């Protein structure tokens, strides 16, 4: 490979880590918030697709990308609230509900998003971090989504709030010991519904960055399982919002290897390189999980960690 190709490949991967990593960051933060309250939301995939559609539709109809972002967050919150409410019913399994919502969210998004496949919507403006460089590859790689700083801030605030605020402690108590929360007179179901809804809204921001920044259009293949990978990302980040940042960047970079190789002129194994995030997730799970013991740092009430 020539030096130019190397630059293209490297900046492709870094750019991918920033672009593809942003939705990863939001969904993993959303999932982290949900799981901290003791519930798993596999339906985040549906939330992501639906909010991506809603964000695109909102931006297209109103002409403002920020209205779209808001629409995405609201749509994500609504679907997640349904998950939260369903799981509060007696005898309803949260894993199965997640699969159902994955189906429902995807179906609703495809159904309502049919007229949105052709048009163009106003995009979220980019922050140009690459102005110092002469290389066009580097410049285009460092066009950063304006939602990314928000996501980073959110991760830090969440990490702080879990430790130092009343609501953060309540949330963790509901997640670690429902009995303790009940004994103090709090409704565990209410806490979890609120956490799931807020988690859905955060994940909705991830959906918005899919359709309003990169790839920047609405189509039915918009999400390739980011919402599901989020579950593994949170395990990888050991339920810490701060570590979600690194995890999201790693997975974004891994997911960008295929397209980056293609842009550097290597077409071989495009689909194989696209499976790298999933393989990476599995490898991480193999390395971090031990039979017969719960994962380190996991909320005690989480059904998937038992």
């Amino acid at each position: 490979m020539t030096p130019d190709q190397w630059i293209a490949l490297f900046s492709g991967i870094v750019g991918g880590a920033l672009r593809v990593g942003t939705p990863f960051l939001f969904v993993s933060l959303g999932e982290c918030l949900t799981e901290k309250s003791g519930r798993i939301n596999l339906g985040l995939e549906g939330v992501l697709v639906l909010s991506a559609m809603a964000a695109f539709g909102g931006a297209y109809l109103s002409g403002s990308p920020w209205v779209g972002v808001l629409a995405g967050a609201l749509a994500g919150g609504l679907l997640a609230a349904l998950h939260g409410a369903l799981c509060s019913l007696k005898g309803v399994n949260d894993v199965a509900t997640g699969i159902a919502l994955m189906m429902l969210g995807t179906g609703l998004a495809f159904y309502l998003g049919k007229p949105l496949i052709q048009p163009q919507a106003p995009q979220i403006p980019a922050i140009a971090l690459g102005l110092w460089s002469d290389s066009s590859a580097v410049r285009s790689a460092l066009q950063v989504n304006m939602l990314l700083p928000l996501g980073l801030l959110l991760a830090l605030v969440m990490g702080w709030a879990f430790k130092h605020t009343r609501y953060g402690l309540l949330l963790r108590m509901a997640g670690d010991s429902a009995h303790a929360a009940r004994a103090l007179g709090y409704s565990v179901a209410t806490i979890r519904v609120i956490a799931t809804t807020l988690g859905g809204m955060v994940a909705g921001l991830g959906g918005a960055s899919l359709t309003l920044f990169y790839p920047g259009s609405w189509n039915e293949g918009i999400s390739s399982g980011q919402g599901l990978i989020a579950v593994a990302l949170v395990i990888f980040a050991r339920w810490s919002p701060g570590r979600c940042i690194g995890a999201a960047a790693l997975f974004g970079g891994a997911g960008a290897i295929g397209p980056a190789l293609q842009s550097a002129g290597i077409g071989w194994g495009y689909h194989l390189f696209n499976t790298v995030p999933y393989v990476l997730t599995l490898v991480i799970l193999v390395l971090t999980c031990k039979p017969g013991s719960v994962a380190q740092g996991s909320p005690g009430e989480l059904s998937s960690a038992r």
Partner: protein
Amino acid sequence: MRDTLNNIGLPLLAIAAALALFGVFVSLSGVNPVDVWLLLFKGAFGDWFSWQNTLQRAAPLMLTALCVAVPARAGLVVIGGEGALVLGGLACAVAAQSLPLPEGPVGIAVICAAGALAGALWVALAGWLRQYRGINETISSLLLAYIAIGLFKHLVEGPLRDPLSLNKPATHSLPEGLLIGGMGGSDVHWGLALGVLACIGLALWMRWTASGFSVRVVGGNPRAAQLVGLPASRLILTACALGGAAAGLAGAVEVAAVHTNANVSLIAFYGYAGILVSFIARHHPLAIIPVAILFGGFGAAGSMLQRRLGLPDASVLVLQGIAFVLILASEALRGVDWKTRLTLFFRAAGPDPLPAGDQRS
């Protein structure tokens, strides 16, 4: 008795409610819901042509539903049937291409076995990761499904591609003698018989054999299984492998009876719809047969909705999503003591000696 009533009544109620809600949903986009319901019925079960279409779609659904149901009986939630199906189809195409097979039933049996084997290994891997590495099987099976689809696309577009397939990459087509034909001159292929047989066979296995019973013990009460010394890991792996074999067989049948080669059309969400079918059937292999036919019918009617009423092709996905949500929600009604509830309700409605607001439940 009340259990049976609950098991049959609640899903029926949920499906009816889902159809009603779906009607409301489509009427929002200006379509008459009555037209939709009639068309759903006609497109699914209206005439012999629709029945053939329905049954053709029901065959893979039965098999992918088994991929959820059998591990579920062993206490696992496996949702990666799509991966097993895709790899099963690929293995079937590869076997037909690379092995010197006799044409006719023997050759067909071999390629179907190849598909089943591939699926069995893939889902057993998820079971192995759970038992020996402590990884949640729901997540791992789903990740494995994505990996399988990536592998499939890579192989079909690369090393295994038939150079003659220009626009749509595909493997070499199966020779005429290895294709699965229709039953009794109809369009319904023998895959349906395989699906029904697999459902019946696995139901018998779980009901009447010691190993099947042990699997149910492991799933129902792991502690009891441990106390009587059942080999839990081996039983769970067996259940996963059997489920995976069913899904792999679904892929092989789809290739040998419908597509004639392995191409991306094989990725048609049968694996995910199978999850829904299995949950509605409460993971009971015999109940899977009618539920799969019902949902095969919805699938068949879907294209009709698109053509006649101009609804998006995703409307069936919406219907399935609503049905799944309501099925799960209906679980909450299971423990309800209807007799007492109704008595209380009527007493509250009629002249009530108790002051209002004193309805303790």
